[in-house]
């Protein structure tokens, strides 16, 4: 792929000269956090770095729109996606449970947020990529009580459909978006399907047949195959 240019010495990889930039490292990601903190100050609430893998940042709702613009000006001009997370544990249990027996244990599961933490049930998250430095970042924001956030449309035209989808699936409104119609669902649809308390009716009526399928293997020495899910 790379022309074998005879540069400094034989130990350096020839392809590194031709590549647009060095492959992402943690130093690069820390630099991104510093540059973002210089712009946003205290409004940058938390960051999370998985070594050699990925970067997460969380900002306040007040600077949500500004964060997009700041990151774009710092080179993150490729809009990947925008969506939301409902951190509430599902009241209907997960897929393996028999829905009729879901409420056997009384202790309700606690609501916990993922990387970079969070204080609210709903979080909006988006991902931007820097095509020159070959690095991406996931930006999270807590959704306030009013369930509204500023739109990213002025910065990223691609946010249009993503925000419409987030609106119909989670009920989060984006202030300044000109057209918050449903994208997938019919106009008169009630409820927000991707919220955890929206029941998946097909599963309520009939338990997942996958539960029944599990048979203990004859020569299996693991003991914990009492619950569902075929691993192999």
């Amino acid at each position, binding site marked *: 792929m790379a022309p074998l240019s005879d540069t400094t010495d034989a130990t350096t990889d020839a392809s590194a000269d031709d590549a647009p930039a060095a492959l992402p490292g943690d130093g690069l990601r820390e630099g991104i956090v510093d540059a973002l903190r210089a712009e946003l100050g205290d409004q940058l609430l938390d960051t999370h770095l998985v070594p050699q893998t990925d970067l997460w940042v969380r900002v306040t709702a007040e600077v949500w729109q500004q964060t997009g613009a700041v990151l774009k000006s710092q080179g993150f001009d490729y809009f990947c996606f925008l969506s939301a997370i409902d951190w509430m544990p599902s009241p209907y249990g997960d897929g393996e449970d028999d829905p009729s027996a879901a409420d056997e244990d009384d202790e309700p599961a606690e609501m916990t947020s993922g990387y970079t933490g969070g204080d609210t049930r709903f979080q909006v998250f988006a991902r931007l990529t820097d095509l020159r430095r070959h690095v991406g970042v*996931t930006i999270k924001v807590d959704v306030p009580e009013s369930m509204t956030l500023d739109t990213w449309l002025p910065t990223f035209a691609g946010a249009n459909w993503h925000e419409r989808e987030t609106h119909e699936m989670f009920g989060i409104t984006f202030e300044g978006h000109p057209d918050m119609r449903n994208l997938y669902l019919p106009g008169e649809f009630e409820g927000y399907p991707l919220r955890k308390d929206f029941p998946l009716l097909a599963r309520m009526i009939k338990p997942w047949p996958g539960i029944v399928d599990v048979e203990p293997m004859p020569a299996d020495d693991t003991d914990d195959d009492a619950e569902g899910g075929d691993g192999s």
Partner: protein
Amino acid sequence: MTMLNERQQLSYIAAQAADARLNVELETDGMTLNIGPQHPATHGTLRIIARLDGEQVVWAEPVPGYMHRGYEKLTEVRTFPQVTTLINRIDWLGSFANEVPFILAAEQLMEIEAPPRAQYIRTILFELSRIANIGLFLGDLGVQMGAVTPAFFGFRDREYVLNLIEGATGGRFHPNFDRIGGLKDDLPKGWINETKQVMKRLRGFCDEIEDLLFGNEIFQSRTRGIGVIPAEVAKSYGLSGANLRASGVDWDLRRDQVLPMAWDKADFKVWTHPDGDSWARCWVRLQETREATKIVDQLIDDLPAGPIMAKVPRIIKVPEGEAWVSTENPLGEMGYYVISKGDLGPFRVKIRSASFNNISITPWVLKGVYVPDIITILASLYFILGDIDR
């Protein structure tokens, strides 16, 4: 990085402005044209509402959702190994490629890696899905402009690739072959020789299409300078894959990120085109198919021996955490944002499919074009309906 040059952009805008002036003089009445949801040119149930002034589109909007299956909700009630069955059906022409980023995300959370042989076979099957997918695109391209012959070539030669995929995985369209930690099975006997012959054949198919279509005057006049997307617009809409590279952005996730796959072991070129028009998008895909056959050939030659499955527990529980993995799928960047709470199934999966972003640009790009160009622009943007609606 090359971009659409300023002169080309200006002349394009000037031509559109001249057309618009002409229409003001003619004072034609507007009309609304509904294309689809059932229309042969939409490859499925995509509906497009276009407001026309004479032959020109003033405003156009696609209406997706006729095939929305709610996969993001369904993944929340499946175990990790069961999810691959669902996501196979997102981009149904390149199914195996859909499985890979999800499996990689789960593996990243579990901190395991597939053995080298499995990585190679994964990459080979990934590229075969690309060839099957784009091979059909190249054949189908002519049909949009009235040339039916290439479609038969496309279907004929894709069949050879599908046979290979079926030979290795057992499924023509929905392999469901990728497993957390490796693959379900090793390659069957005789598969490698067969693959080499088919790859040779497919390169012949690419030459054939290049002669038949890309050199054709009608094809050129219908696509050259039509539907120009400048690089900045493409990036802000999140266009990916060949659509982005045809706007001059040199970006390919196979080359530009570190993944436990075998792309870095192969020598291939990432083609870009500075024009950003329909022709460039088709041309980049043609080159991409050629490169894919070369990748398959190289990887088959250096296929390492060894196991195809890492050591994983029989009941897979993915540790708590979040992971984002995306790969360069036939249609563009496809990624999964997986959140696990340490259970058997994912807590939430955000599916980022390429066609969703690729087709969201249509209101922008269709503004001011003529009615027959709607079809060619849509064809060159190349979408699979399941990949928009999920």
